[in-house]
């Protein structure tokens, strides 16, 4: 098997003492897949698996995983073609893996990220994104705050819309590869905005959370 092929997620399985099991897929957040995987888990309030992972699991505890799996929603560092990333909430995780992979390979394809998040406090990887964007001309990050904006932010809290994409995304005429990840309604809205703005639909890859993935 080609071990170097990039993979996007692992399945985590929890087993209760009565034999009940629950499986969830979590995106891999780190660039290299050697023998370590980094997962970023956002707790779903009425979730079955995420509260255990967030509150109960401790360093050294065994965890049953299957993977890494899935070769479709991945960016392969083989070209310099421009890449547009659009994240909603914890949909940033697989896109962060792409940003980290790009940094690791020194193949500096232009990357732009639009990151829609509830508030500044809810922003995942905030410091790392700021540092990477500051050190790298080829990477830019634009934020959309949907509930509350940071002090001094020039616009009101809003959901992502066509105007915001037009202002911040790589132009459709550059034919960027687009990766969109977030809650189902977010992803479907963004894919529609991109399609209406003339982006090639065959170049748009999406990953939706299930309906329980919350909103951003």
């Amino acid at each position, binding site marked *: 098997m080609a071990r170097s092929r990039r993979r996007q997620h692992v399945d985590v399985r929890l087993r209760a003492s009565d034999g009940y099991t629950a*499986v969830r897929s979590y995106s891999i957040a780190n660039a290299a897949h050697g023998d370590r995987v980094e997962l970023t888990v956002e707790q779903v309030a009425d979730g079955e698996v995420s509260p255990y992972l967030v509150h109960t699991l401790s360093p050294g505890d065994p965890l049953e995983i299957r993977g890494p*799996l899935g*070769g*479709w*929603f991945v960016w392969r560092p083989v070209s310099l073609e421009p890449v547009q990333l659009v994240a909603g909430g914890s949909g940033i995780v697989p896109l962060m893996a792409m940003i980290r992979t790009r940094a690791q390979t020194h193949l500096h394809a232009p990357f732009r990220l639009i990151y829609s998040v509830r508030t500044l406090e809810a922003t995942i990887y905030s410091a790392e994104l700021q540092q990477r964007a500051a050190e790298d001309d080829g990477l830019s990050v634009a934020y959309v705050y949907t509930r509350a904006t940071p002090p001094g932010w020039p616009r009101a809290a809003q959901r992502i819309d066509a105007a915001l994409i037009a202002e911040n995304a790589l132009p459709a005429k550059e034919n960027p590869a687009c990766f969109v990840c977030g809650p189902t309604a977010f992803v479907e809205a963004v894919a529609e905005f991109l399609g209406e703005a003339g982006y090639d639909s065959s170049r748009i890859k999406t990953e939706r*959370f299930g309906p329980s993935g919350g909103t951003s």
Partner: protein
Amino acid sequence: MSSRSYCDGNAAAGELRDIFAVDITAAAGQCAACGMIGALAQGHLYAFEPGIVVRCAVCEHPLVRLVKGPGRAWLDLRGLVYLQLEVPSGQNS
């Protein structure tokens, strides 16, 4: 059916890896009902024990059905006209 909850076909990779030697979710398939061609990863995955169904993202026709029982699995692919698989270079001649 459309009101039931689904996630992306991406998430079927684990179950399908138990059956196939290659990553089927990254393969392009054609829906036998509407003719849509797309990656199985973009289909709608309905995962209810003991099986999974991947449906066409356009018309919701079932493309892949997989049911597992003790020591065996049943796989129904009749919703697909074909699958186009990536073959690692050097192994296709």
